[in-house]
C-alpha cells in the first residue's frame, strides 16, 4: 500500500520522506537512481557522516518503499526536535549557512554539487547544525552553474545581512517568506549598508539587479554557452563563506539579554529554584523538557539533572543567541535554544497549512518549565489565566510552573505604568484557573522570595479544550 510522503516533502521529484509504523524513511525514486548511485560511490556520504555534517542513514529493504517507482529506501537517523529557520538565533542561521557552504565545497572536491541550498535542509542535533537531505547531491555537469546560488542567497545571506546590518527583528521575514527573503527585497532594505562591502554588493545588490534585468528572459545564447568552471564554483563558495563569516551581531542591549544577571532573585532564591526544578522533574520520567521563557538557559541546565534534553524557548533574540553561544562554546549536546514568542507561537505554515508544523503539533513534550513566565503572559499581555493553563496543557504532560505574586518587585514594575485590572491574579485565582486543565500535585515556596513553585499534571495531555 502506498504511504503518503510527509507534508513537507513533495517539491523534489527525486524522492521523498515518509513514515511507516512510526519510523522515518526516505525513498529514492528511479528517476534519480543514477545520480544517487554516483554520489554514493563517491564516498561523500561516508565523509560527511563521519565528520558529523550529514545525518547518517542506512539502506533498508525495497519492500518498505512507499510507492512502486522506488529505487532505494533509506532509514535516516531521526532528528529529535524539528526546528525551523524562523526560530533560530542569528548564530544558528549563520552556522547553518557555513555548514551548507562547507558541504558544497566538499561536494565540489568530489566533482559533485549541491542541487539545492534550502535552510530547511539543516536541523540542530546535539548542539550542532547537521544537514538532513541525503538527496541534495548530484554529479556536477561540466560547465554548469550552481543552480542553488540564488536559493542560498535568499535563505541565508540576505536574512543574515538584514539581521546584522539593519535590524534583528527582520529575522521574522523568514516566517513570511518560506522560500527565502527575495533578493530584491533584501537589496531595498539593505540600501547603502551593502554598497561598501564588496561581498554584499556582489551577492545581494548586483545579484538583485541581475534578477530584475533578466526576469522572465532565457539566457542569451552566448551566455548559455559560457561554461562555469569548477574553479569558479569553488571561488563562489569561498566568496560566500567570506561574506557570511564577516556578518556579526552583538547580543546585548535588549530587554531580556541581561535578565539572568539583572533580576530580583537572591542567590538563595535562585539556588532554591534550581533545586526545585530538578527535584520536581525527577521521578517523572521526562525525556524531553520544553523550557518556556528560558532566557539564557540557566534553569534548562538545572532540568538536565532529571531529563535527557531541553528545548529552551525564549522571545528575546539576544537571550537565545547567548544560550546558543554557550551551547557551542561548552560543547553541550542536550540543549536546543530557539526563538519563540509564546503570545504568537509558530503556526502551521506553507502549502495547505501543512509544510511547517506549529509548535503545538511538535508536542506534547514530556514536561514543561514555565518559570517567571505567567505574570508576563497574564499581566503583560492580558491573557486570562485559564487560557494560559489550557494552552500549556496542550503543550506538555507535566508542568513545573512558578507563580509570581503581585507583591513581587517584577510584577510591581509591570503595574507601575498601567491600572491594575487583574483582580483574579492571586495565588488562589491562579490555582483555580490551572485546575481546569491540570491536577496540582505539589506546591512549594521558593525560599528567599514570595514566589511559589507548582508541579502539575495535564488532565488530558495534548487534548485539553480551550476554556471560553
Amino acid at each position, binding site marked *: 500500500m502506498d504511504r503518503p510522503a510527509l507534508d513537507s516533502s513533495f517539491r523534489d521529484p527525486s524522492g521523498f520522506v515518509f513514515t511507516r509504523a512510526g519510523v522515518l524513511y526516505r525513498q529514492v525514486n528511479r528517476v534519480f537512481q543514477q545520480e544517487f548511485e554516483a554520489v554514493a560511490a563517491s564516498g561523500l556520504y561516508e565523509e560527511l557522516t563521519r565528520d558529523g555534517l550529514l545525518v547518517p542513514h542506512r539502506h533498508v529493504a525495497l519492500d518498505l518503499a512507499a510507492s512502486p517507482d522506488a529505487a532505494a529506501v533509506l532509514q535516516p537517523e531521526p532528528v529529535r526536535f524539528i526546528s525551523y529557520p524562523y526560530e533560530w538565533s542569528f548564530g544558528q542561521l549563520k552556522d547553518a549557512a557555513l555548514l551548507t557552504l562547507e558541504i558544497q565545497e566538499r561536494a565540489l572536491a568530489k566533482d559533485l554539487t549541491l542541487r539545492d541550498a534550502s535552510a530547511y535542509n539543516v536541523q540542530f542535533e546535539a548542539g550542532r547544525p547537521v544537514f538532513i537531505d541525503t538527496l541534495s547531491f548530484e554529479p556536477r555537469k561540466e560547465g554548469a552553474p*550552481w543552480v542553488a546560488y540564488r536559493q542560498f542567497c535568499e535563505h541565508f545571506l540576505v536574512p543574515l545581512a538584514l539581521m546584522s546590518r539593519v535590524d534583528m527583528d527582520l529575522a521574522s521575514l523568514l516566517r513570511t517568506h518560506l522560500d527565502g527573503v527575495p533578493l530584491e527585497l533584501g537589496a531595498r532594505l539593505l540600501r547603502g549598508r551593502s554598497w561598501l562591502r564588496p561581498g554584499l554588493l556582489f551577492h545581494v545588490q548586483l545579484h538583485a539587479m541581475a534578477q530584475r534585468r533578466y526576469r522572465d528572459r532565457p539566457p542569451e545564447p552566448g*551566455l548559455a554557452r559560457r561554461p562555469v568552471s569548477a574553479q569558479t564554483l569553488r571561488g563562489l563558495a569561498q566568496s560566500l563563506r567570506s561574506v557570511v563569516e564577516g556578518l556579526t551581531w552583538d547580543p546585548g542591549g535588549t530587554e531580556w539579554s541581561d535578565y539572568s544577571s539583572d533580576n530580583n532573585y537572591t542567590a538563595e532564591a535562585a539556588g532554591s529554584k534550581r533545586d526545585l526544578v530538578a527535584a520536581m522533574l525527577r521521578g517523572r520520567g521526562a525525556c524531553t523538557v520544553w523550557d518556556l521563557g528560558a532566557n539564557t538557559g540557566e534553569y534548562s541546565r538545572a532540568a538536565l539533572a532529571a531529563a535527557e534534553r531541553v528545548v529552551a524557548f525564549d522571545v528575546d533574540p539576544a537571550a537565545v543567541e547567548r544560550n546558543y553561544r554557550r551551547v557551542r562554546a561548552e560543547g553541550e549536546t542536550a540543549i536546543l535554544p530557539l526563538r519563540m514568542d509564546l503570545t504568537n507561537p509558530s503556526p502551521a505554515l506553507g502549502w495547505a497549512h501543512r509544510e511547517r508544523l506549529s509548535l503545538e503539533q511538535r508536542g506534547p513534550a514530556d514536561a514543561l518549565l514555565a518559570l517567571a513566565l505567567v505574570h508576563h503572559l497574564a499581566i503583560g499581555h492580558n491573557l486570562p489565566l485559564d487560557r494560559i493553563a489550557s494552552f500549556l496543557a496542550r503543550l506538555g504532560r507535566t508542568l513545573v510552573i512558578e507563580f509570581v505574586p503581585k507583591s513581587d518587585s517584577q510584577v510591581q514594575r509591570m503595574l507601575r505604568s498601567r491600572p491594575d485590572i487583574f483582580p483574579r491574579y492571586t495565588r488562589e485565582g491562579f490555582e483555580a484557573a490551572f485546575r481546569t486543565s491540570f491536577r496540582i500535585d505539589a506546591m512549594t515556596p521558593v525560599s528567599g522570595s514570595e514566589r511559589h513553585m507548582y508541579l502539575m499534571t495535564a488532565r488530558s495531555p495534548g487534548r485539553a479544550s480551550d476554556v471560553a
Partner: protein
Amino acid sequence: MYLDPTTGSLVMQVIAAGAISALAMVGRVREAAKSIFQKAFRGRRWTGRR
C-alpha cells in the same frame, strides 16, 4: 534539476567566472614578475661576490 536557477543568477556566476579568471591572471603575472626580479636579484648578488 527542480530549482529554477534564474538567468540573473547565471549571469552573476559568469561574471564571477570572469573575475576569478582575471584574479588568477593577475596572480600568474605577479608570480612571473616576482620570478623575473628574483632571478635578476640573485644574478646581481652572484656577480657581486665574484
